[in-house]
């Protein structure tokens, strides 16, 4: 990563944890995980709590749907690390790689439920333009998403717009497909806490 403190500035017990993860999993600790261990009282602790609530907390969206939203927001932001991580996680959660690939390739033609398609479209506009209108939201509600679901999707978007920008600004190392898949298994088992 571009700041030396994010590569080497960890407390001894945290470095030991990174070593243990590498030994037991056979994979290095991804930079996304390392970031939240750096001075966790400043950012990581509360970021993890919010992200876990958005991604694994109570919602009418499935975990797979929310991982797909994370992948889609990341794609609009052109964040290679996050696209890889959440494409792998959504694919594993749905047990359907083709569905995820189709949405990321062409949302309009993908075989996906209308409330989810309309929600993803709105999130894409919000990320690309920085704002959305009441008319945009009416279109999502008319497609069948509830107001509660839209609020939940906005929380996913807030979490991953931040992570996308930190990933690219700090220079997270993009992992191999096997490493992203290992991360996906972890995220589906343990979440973001």
């Amino acid at each position, binding site marked *: 990563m571009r700041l030396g403190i994010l590569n080497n500035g960890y407390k001894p017990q945290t470095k030991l944890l990174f070593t243990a993860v590498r030994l037991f999993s056979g994979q290095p600790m991804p930079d996304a995980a390392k970031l939240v261990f750096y*001075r966790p009282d400043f*950012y990581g602790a509360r970021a993890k709590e919010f992200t876990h609530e958005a991604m694994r*907390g109570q919602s009418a969206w499935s975990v797979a749907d929310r991982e797909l939203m994370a992948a889609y927001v990341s794609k609009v932001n*052109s964040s290679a690390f996050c696209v890889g991580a959440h494409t792998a996680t959504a694919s594993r959660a749905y047990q359907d790689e083709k569905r995820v690939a189709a949405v990321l390739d062409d949302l309009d033609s993908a075989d996906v439920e209308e409330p989810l398609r309309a929600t993803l479209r709105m999130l894409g506009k919000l990320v690309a333009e920085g*704002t959305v209108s*009441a008319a*945009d939201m009416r279109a999502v509600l008319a497609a069948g998403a509830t107001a509660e679901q839209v609020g939940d999707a906005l*929380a996913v978007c807030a979490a991953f717009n931040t992570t996308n920008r930190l990933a690219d600004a700090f220079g997270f190392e993009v992992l191999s497909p096997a490493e992203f898949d290992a991360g996906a298994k972890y995220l589906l088992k343990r979440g973001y806490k």
Partner: protein
Amino acid sequence: MRDVKQAGYRALVERVLDGAGAASAEQRVRAFGDVGLAAPLDSLIDGVLARPGRVSEADFAAAKAAGFSEDQLFELVVCAAVGQSTRMYEAGLAALDEAASGGEDV
């Protein structure tokens, strides 16, 4: 559940802006709002907000040469990213509330 999520988000925002930090609270507020930043920090923060994929070692090196420590830059980049997401989150929720209440666009 919206209240739970918003409360969690507010806790994050309050911490990065108001808690202890290596960067001053004033610097963090400026990075969060993307306002009133001087060169070369403005270039780094603009990059985080507009084209994070093109932020480079040189952007960080220029800010360090201007006297910012790595811990200060870590905090200011986090504040900038969280600030932009906050503006998006608030704009989305406001539009949703307007749509759900039957309001018209202004």
